[in-house]
C-alpha cells in the first residue's frame, strides 16, 4: 500500500516560489576573456574506433567526446588514423589553401562592390575538403552555404563559382541566385538554398531514392549548429532512422550562428552529436579542424551507409574564424580573443605542420604552393571579371528571368516577358 501522505487532497499543496528561465550567454562578449578550460577536449587518439556494424546503443559515448587524430604537435595517434596517401594529403592541403584563397579574393571582390554578398569558410576548410576526398566523387552532396571546399575538391571550376558570384554573362545560374548559392549537378552537388536546413531532409530523400532504386550512391549533407533548431533537422533524423537511409548527416558546429552562439541552439545542454542518439542513430563528435579526423569519420560513416547499416550523425567541432558573412561584424557580439585562442587551431596550419614533421613537405614548398594557388585564383578571377561583375549590366539576357519557373513558361511568363520588353 502507498505510504499515506500528510497533506490531504490532491497533489502537493505547497506552492513553489517564483519561476525563472535560464538565458544562455556565450563564453565571452567583446572585451571579455574567453575561457576554454571547460571544453574538456579528449586527447588525440583517446577515442575508440568501433567496427562499422557496432550497434548504435553501444557507442553512445562517442557523441560526448571528441575524436582527434592529430595531436597538438601534428602527430597522428590512435585507431582513427585513416588510410590515406601522402599524395592525397598534399592534394587536400592544396585544396584547403585554394578554398581559403578563393574566399579571400571573393570577400575582397564584395568589398570592392563587385558583388552583393559573400560568405567565407575560413577555419572550416578541412570539413569540406577532407569529407569530399573521403566520399566517392558521385556520392551526392547537399551542403549548406559554407562548404565551398566541396566544389573545389570535386573539380567544379572556380571560374564557374566566380561567374555565379558575379551574376555575369557566364553565370551558370543566369543571375538568379545570390552569390555562393551554387548549383553543381555535374559534380553531384545539390543547389544551395537561402533557407536554412531545407537540404537536410532532402538529402535523406535522395539517399532513400538511391536505395529504393538499387543504386550504390550514398548522400551526405551539412548543416550549421544554429540551423539544427529548424524542423527540417528533425525530419531528416526521423526519416533517416526509420528507413536506415544511406546518408551522412553532418553538423558543423562552428560555435556561432550569426550573433548567437551555439548555446542558443541548445549546444550547452548536450553536444549536437547527441541529437542523433535520441533517434538511435550512431553519432560521432570530431575535431573539425583535424583533416584526418574529418576524413576518417566520413569514411566510417560512408562505409556504414554503403553496407546498408544506415545513417550516421557527425558533429564537426570547429570555429567560425571570421564574420558570418560580408553583412556581419562579429566584433559587436563576440570577443576577438575567442578566435585567437581557439584550442583546435587552424586546419591548414595543422595539416601543413604534420606533413612537414613527417618530412614530406616543407615551409618553402608550402609558400610556393600558396603563391601558385594565389596566382591561379587571381588569373581565374581576372578572366571571370572580364565577363562582368554585378551591377555593371553585363549579365545573361534579362529575358531569361522568365524561364525555368516551370519547365515550359505558361502564358503569364510569356505575356510578362513581352510586357517587360525583352
Amino acid at each position, binding site marked *: 500500500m502507498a505510504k499515506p501522505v500528510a497533506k490531504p487532497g490532491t497533489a502537493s499543496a505547497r506552492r513553489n516560489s517564483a519561476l525563472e528561465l535560464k538565458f544562455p550567454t556565450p563564453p565571452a562578449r567583446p572585451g571579455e576573456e574567453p575561457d576554454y578550460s571547460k571544453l574538456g577536449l579528449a586527447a588525440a587518439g583517446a577515442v575508440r574506433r568501433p567496427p562499422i556494424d557496432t550497434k548504435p546503443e553501444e557507442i553512445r559515448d562517442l557523441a560526448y567526446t571528441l575524436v582527434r587524430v592529430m595531436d597538438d604537435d601534428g602527430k597522428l595517434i590512435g585507431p582513427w588514423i585513416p588510410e590515406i596517401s601522402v599524395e592525397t594529403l598534399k592534394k587536400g592541403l592544396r585544396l584547403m589553401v585554394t578554398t581559403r584563397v578563393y574566399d579571400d579574393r571573393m570577400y575582397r571582390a564584395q568589398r570592392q562592390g563587385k558583388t552583393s554578398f559573400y560568405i567565407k569558410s575560413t577555419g572550416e576548410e578541412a570539413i569540406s575538403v577532407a569529407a569530399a576526398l573521403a566520399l566517392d566523387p558521385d556520392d*551526392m552532396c*547537399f551542403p549548406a552555404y559554407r562548404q565551398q571546399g566541396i566544389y573545389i575538391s570535386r573539380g567544379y571550376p572556380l571560374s564557374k563559382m566566380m561567374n555565379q558570384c558575379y551574376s555575369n554573362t557566364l553565370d*551558370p*545560374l*543566369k543571375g*538568379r*541566385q545570390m552569390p555562393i*548559392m551554387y*548549383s*553543381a*549537378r555535374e559534380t553531384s552537388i*545539390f*543547389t544551395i*538554398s*537561402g*533557407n536554412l536546413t*531545407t537540404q*537536410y*531532409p*532532402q*538529402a*535523406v*530523400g*535522395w*539517399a*532513400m*531514392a*538511391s536505395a*529504393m*532504386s538499387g543504386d550504390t550512391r550514398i*548522400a551526405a549533407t551539412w548543416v550549421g549548429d544554429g540551423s539544427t533548431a529548424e*524542423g*527540417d533537422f*528533425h*525530419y*531528416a533524423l*526521423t*526519416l533517416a532512422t*526509420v528507413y536506415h537511409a544511406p546518408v551522412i548527416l553532418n553538423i558543423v558546429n562552428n560555435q556561432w550562428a550569426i550573433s548567437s552562439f551555439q548555446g542558443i541552439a541548445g549546444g550547452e545542454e548536450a553536444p549536437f552529436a547527441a541529437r542523433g542518439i535520441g533517434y538511435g542513430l550512431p553519432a560521432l563528435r570530431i575535431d573539425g579542424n583535424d583533416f584526418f579526423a574529418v576524413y576518417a569519420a566520413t569514411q566510417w560513416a560512408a562505409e556504414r551507409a554503403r553496407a546498408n547499416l544506415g545513417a550516421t550523425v557527425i558533429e564537426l567541432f570547429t570555429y567560425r574564424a571570421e564574420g558570418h558573412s560580408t553583412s556581419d561584424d562579429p566584433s559587436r557580439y563576440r570577443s576577438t580573443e575567442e578566435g585567437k585562442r581557439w584550442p583546435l587551431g587552424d586546419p591548414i596550419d595543422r595539416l601543413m605542420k604534420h606533413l612537414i614533421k613527417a618530412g614530406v613537405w616543407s615551409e618553402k614548398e608550402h609558400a610556393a604552393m600558396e603563391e601558385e594557388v594565389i596566382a591561379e585564383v587571381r588569373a581565374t578571377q581576372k578572366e571571370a571579371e572580364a565577363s562582368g561583375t554585378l551591377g555593371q549590366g553585363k549579365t545573361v539576357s534579362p529575358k531569361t528571368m522568365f*524561364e*525555368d*519557373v*516551370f*519547365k515550359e513558361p*505558361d*502564358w503569364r511568363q510569356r505575356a510578362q516577358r513581352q510586357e517587360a520588353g525583352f
Partner: protein
Amino acid sequence: MATMNMVQAINSAMATMMEKDKKVIVFGEDVGFFGGVFRATEGLQAKFGVNRCFDAPITEGGIVAAAIGMGAYGLRPVVEVQFADYIYPAMDQLVSEAARLRYRSAGEFFAPMVVRSPYGGGIYGGQTHSQSPESLFTHVVGLKTVIPSTPYDAKGLLISCIEDDDPVIFLEPKRLYTGPFEGHSDDGVKAWSAYPASEVPEGYYNIPLGKAAIVREGQAVTVICYGTMVHVSLAAARETGIDAEVIDLRSLIPLDIDTILVSVKKTGRCVVVHEATRTSGYGAELSALVQEHCFYHLEAPIERVTGYDTPYPHAFEWQYFPGPKRVGEALRRVVEA
C-alpha cells in the same frame, strides 16, 4: 472500361503509372499496408511492394522534403497529405524548395512530384478537416495546382500530374470521393455509377493540364468553378433555369485563360464560385483577370460566391458551404443586372 468512383479512379491512376514507370513511388501517412484513410492507395503496397508504396511518419514537412530529394534523384514521388488542412507544416518545403529548385538551379535540378490531398468540407470535419487552401498555392510561382471534379478527370489529370516535371498540388474534393454532390445537405449520397464520368478506362490515358472543360454550354452567364463547386454550379443553373455556361477549370495553375475569356466575352457576365474563404481566394484572381481582359464586354459586376471569411464551423457547415441556393441567387443577380 470500368465504373469507378473518384477514390477508385485516383487509385487507378497511381496503379497505372506505377505499372508503366517504375520511377513512380507512393508514400505518406497510413498509405502503405492500410491503403490510406480514404482508401486511395488501397492495394498498391500489396501489388508493387513496400519499396514503392510505404507508410511515412507523421511529418508532412519531412514527407515533402523527402519527395523533393527523391524527385531530384529522378524518381516521381506521389505523396499523400492526409487532409489539405495539414499541408501547412510542409509550406516551407513547397514554397522555398519544390517551387524554386528549377529556377534557382537554372534547370539543373527540379522536383517532379505530386502532393495529393483531400480538401473541402461537407463531411462534418470541422475547421481542421474541411479547408480549401488552393489559393495559397496559386500565389506560389513554380507550383501547379490541379483539382478534378469527376472520376474520369481525376484519373486523367492525376496521370498528367505524375508525368509532369514540375511539382503539382493535386487537391481531391473529398465530398466527391464516393459520389457527385450538388450541395443539398439533405440529399442522400448518390453513387458515381449513375454518371457517365464514372466510366473510367482501366489503362493509361491523360487529360492535359491547363485545359478547362465547359461542362455546360450557355449564353446568359459564365460560371467559373472547380471541384465540388462544379456540381453545385450545375445544380444552380438547373434549379434557376438560367442558361449558364459552366467552366470547370480542372487546373488552376496553369490556367486556361482562353476558354474563360471566350466564354465571358460571349455571355458578358461572370460568376466565380469556390468553397474557400473569400478574401484573397482564387476567385479574386479569376475576377481580376476577367475584369482586366473583358472589361468592355461585361454587362454586370462579376460576383464571387465563396465560403465566408470565417473558419469552417463544424455544426454550421451547411450555412458556410456555398450551396446551389447562394450560387443561384448570384446567377440571378448577375443576369438581371
